[in-house]
């Protein structure tokens, strides 16, 4: 009988990738972590990740994965027990292991054998790990030899096993009973002492939690390792210590602390082995004598729930299903608007009221379904920790990455599309921006370069900033190169910000030599293209010698927006509501004579240029000045007015693409279908204003 494992394997691959990503983040955090408590937490998380991968890979018989993860896990266990310090070298080793594991898993899932290069790498890693482990073992043996030669042996005749499963074992699908049962079959005269008191504690009893801890005693002629093997699968979920006959008193002392009840343990030990009575007594007074600081410790195993690393519950949903849901919600919004219109036509008050309620509900559904697609940008940013580390190492530079605003949410489509451009920008910043340590010191800058990734919301758009404190852009060099490459003509005079934008032109690179990392001149044009396709914009700010900042501005969502509708020459137009600052009657702020030959007004002592849409759209016919309205819009730092015929107010807008025919038309960002079934054009406010500015500037230069 064969079982189709393909879907299970697919799940395993995605899960492993996530775990490996977690592992990578953990390793990178570990490098900078100073507090021991946090470091331990991270190591535990690493351990769990490796262990899970190993376990699952075992199920599918992914032999290479198991070999590699097993040895990595073994060494990590030492680190977990505090016998080993994870230094930079080891962290690099683990990072390589992470990469190798990922490749192995992907290959194994595709049922392909890894190639020789990868196998060599794996073997290398394995031998590196074994070296560490051997070194470790020697140390331990030395320690053991040292301690066992002292007086610390006990005179027990039976094996004692301390077994404290933690609270979550049952939830994780492990039943302590089966292990005890198995132990029973492997050994003889098993005596089980169970501590059950915690079940009657003050907390509410949770049937899925484990409250039991055990002291087992038995006779056996097996070795300590063989006994431990019995518990191999529950190892990561429980405290397990074996006290062989004539065992070490340290094991006993250490183990006792794991139990919450001192009386129970002495009692259990007495029952476990009759020859033990003295020791218990001895321990008893020992405990009262010297263990004054100890009572604080035996609070039992710290439940993993206290872990600092926040785990929110998530549900995996296919992206396609989400897209379909949002499409349907979009249709519902349109139909809702139409129904509302019809309800108003009937003049039936109760119907209108019911419709208003329905409308509000639809709006809520729209908001929540759109939120489903929103993900935090932190995940994308975290990827760069590794990138920055690797590139900086390769170039012999020192770079510190700071992440700000990792919790900023944006549409999943954006996250995917923005990750590539960010990669190019970050590479460029490290390769061309940040200088090597010597140069930096010579210029009086700190040796370590600063790279900052920052995300935040700003007037209806999301801004992602990448800034470095490197040498900044050399504008003369850029201009020269651009002229050499024929991107601009030498007679052209450009503004500072336009010169900076030249770096996004295809085929442009000022790097003298081509490195592995950047300089080929592909890359930055990808940035511009990808951002443009998301209806976003890129800006560059740079101060020579002090560093540069690249700003990526993206709209909040792609599919449904809160719009503001107005009318120009009997046609409806929509602009994103969050770009609208205020609306005014034009004749109330300015008289007709005042704006006959100019296009700006004095609004509360501030200058406000405006565009008369009627004229811009080439409509000859004029309307009465008193009927015109002014919509004041803002995009980033740009603020301007739009003169329109009349205001229609807020409107839920489902953005429909206009298709290839209108692609690349700057001021028109899409269309939407109104309740009446008519189409309204969505205007891109920022492009409208920017186009007007650039055309004015161009005309200025001609005169």
């Amino acid at each position, binding site marked *: 009988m064969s079982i189709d494992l393909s879907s299970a394997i697919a799940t395993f691959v995605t899960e492993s990738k996530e775990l490996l990503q977690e592992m990578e983040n953990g390793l990178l955090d570990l490098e900078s972590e100073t507090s021991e408590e946090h470091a331990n937490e991270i190591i535990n998380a690493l351990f769990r990740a490796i262990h899970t991968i190993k376990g699952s890979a075992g199920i599918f018989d992914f032999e290479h994965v198991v070999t590699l993860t097993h040895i990595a896990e073994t060494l990590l266990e030492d680190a977990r027990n505090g016998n080993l310090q994870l230094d930079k070298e080891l962290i690099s080793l683990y990072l390589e292991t992470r990469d190798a594991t990922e490749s192995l898993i992907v290959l194994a899932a595709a049922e392909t054998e890894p190639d020789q290069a990868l196998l060599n790498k794996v073997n290398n890693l394995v031998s590196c790990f074994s070296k560490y482990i051997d070194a470790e073992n020697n140390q331990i043996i030395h320690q053991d030899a040292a301690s066992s030669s002292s007086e610390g042996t006990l005179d027990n005749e039976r094996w004692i096993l301390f077994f404290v499963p933690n609270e979550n074992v049952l939830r994780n699908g492990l039943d302590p009973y089966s292990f005890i049962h198995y132990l029973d079959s492997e050994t003889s005269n098993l005596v089980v002492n169970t501590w059950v008191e915690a079940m009657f504690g003050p907390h509410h009893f949770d049937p899925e939690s484990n409250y039991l801890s055990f002291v087992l005693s038995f006779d056996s002629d097996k070795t300590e390792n063989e006994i431990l093997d019995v518990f191999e699968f529950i190892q990561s979920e429980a405290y397990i210590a074996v006290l062989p006959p004539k065992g070490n008193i340290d094991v006993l002392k250490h183990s006792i602390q794991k139990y919450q009840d001192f009386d129970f343990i002495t009692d259990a030990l007495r029952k476990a082995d009759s020859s033990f009575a003295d020791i218990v007594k001895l321990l008893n007074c020992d405990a009262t004598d010297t263990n004054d600081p100890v009572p604080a410790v035996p609070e039992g195993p710290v439940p993993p729930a206290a872990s600092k690393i926040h785990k929110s519950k998530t549900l995996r949903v296919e992206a396609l299903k989400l897209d379909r849901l949002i499409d349907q919600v979009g249709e519902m919004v349109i139909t809702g608007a139409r129904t509302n219109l019809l309800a108003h036509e009937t003049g039936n008050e109760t119907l209108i009221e019911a419709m208003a309620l329905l409308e509000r509900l639809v709006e809520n559904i729209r908001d929540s379904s759109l939120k489903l697609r929103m993900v935090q940008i932190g995940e994308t940013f975290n990827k760069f920790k590794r990138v920055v580390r690797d590139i900086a190492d390769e170039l012999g530079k020192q770079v510190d990455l700071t992440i700000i605003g990792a919790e900023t949410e944006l549409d999943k489509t954006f996250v995917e599309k923005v990750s590539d451009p960010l990669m190019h920008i970050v590479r460029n910043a490290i390769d061309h921006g940040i200088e090597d340590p010597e140069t930096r010191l010579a210029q009086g800058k700190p040796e370590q370069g600063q790279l900052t990734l920052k995300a935040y919301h700003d007037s209806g758009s999301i801004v992602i900033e990448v800034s470095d404190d490197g040498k900044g852009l050399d504008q003369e060099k850029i201009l020269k190169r651009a002229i050499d490459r024929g991107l601009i003509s030498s007679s052209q005079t450009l503004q500072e910000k336009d010169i900076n934008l030249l770096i996004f032109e295809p085929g442009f690179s000022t790097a003298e030599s081509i490195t592995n990392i950047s300089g080929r001149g592909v890359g930055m044009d990808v940035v511009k293209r990808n951002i443009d396709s998301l209806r976003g914009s890129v800006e560059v700010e740079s101060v020579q010698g002090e560093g540069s900042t690249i700003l990526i501005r993206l709209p909040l969502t792609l599919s449904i927006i809160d719009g503001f509708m107005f009318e*120009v020459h009997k046609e409806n137009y929509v602009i994103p509501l969050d770009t609208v600052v205020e609306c005014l009657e034009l004749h109330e702020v300015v008289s007709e004579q005042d704006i006959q030959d100019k296009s700006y007004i004095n609004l509360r002592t501030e200058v406000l240029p405006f565009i008369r849409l009627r004229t811009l759209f080439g409509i000859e016919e004029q309307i009465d000045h008193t009927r015109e309205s002014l919509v004041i819009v803002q995009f980033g730092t740009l603020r301007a007015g739009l003169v329109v015929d009349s205001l229609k107010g807020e409107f839920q807008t489902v953005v429909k693409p206009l298709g*290839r025919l209108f692609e690349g038309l700057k001021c028109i960002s899409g269309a939407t279908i109104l309740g009446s079934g008519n189409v309204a054009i969505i205007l891109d406010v920022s492009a409208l204003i920017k186009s007007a500015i650039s*055309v004015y500037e161009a005309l200025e230069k001609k005169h």
Partner: protein
Amino acid sequence: MNNAQPDNTHIQQKDELRYLFVKVGHDHFGIPIDSVKEVIELVETTMVPMCSDVIRGVINVRGSVIPVLDLQRRLGLKLTTPYDKYSCIVLYDFYDHSLEESMTLGMLVNSVVSIEFIDLSNLESSPSFGSNIPRHYEWKMAKINNKLTTLLDIAKVLNVNEINSSLKHEQEQFFIDYCQR
């Protein structure tokens, strides 16, 4: 589209082409019928601002927004006839090879005349000069009942790339006109 395939070969065997004849201005023109999705009456269109008059506007067809071309303007006819109650929008489905994308466009015509079966032997090449529309829009002339009708080279008429770049240029011009005013 799939259904059209066997049909097509069937027609080929019979050495016959099927064309939809429409009236644009005062003349009749043939549009290959295989890709005509439907013909709808002239509904109110929404103007797309800052576009040349080749674009009549956009319409809502069962939830999707479809651009409509004014075929009189697109063919560059000197004398235009106003559209009336007989005017129709021909929805044309096609696959653009340069964009590798299938799309739907509407063509506004003065009226729909007939569906004609054209025997391949009745095809003649278009006049080398003297036509009222640019020559590259013409494919062949069909001779039916001793009457010649121009068959349009629809791939050229609906060249999305060309229209798109002219629209971009047009938009720029609107801004320049506005700023120079």
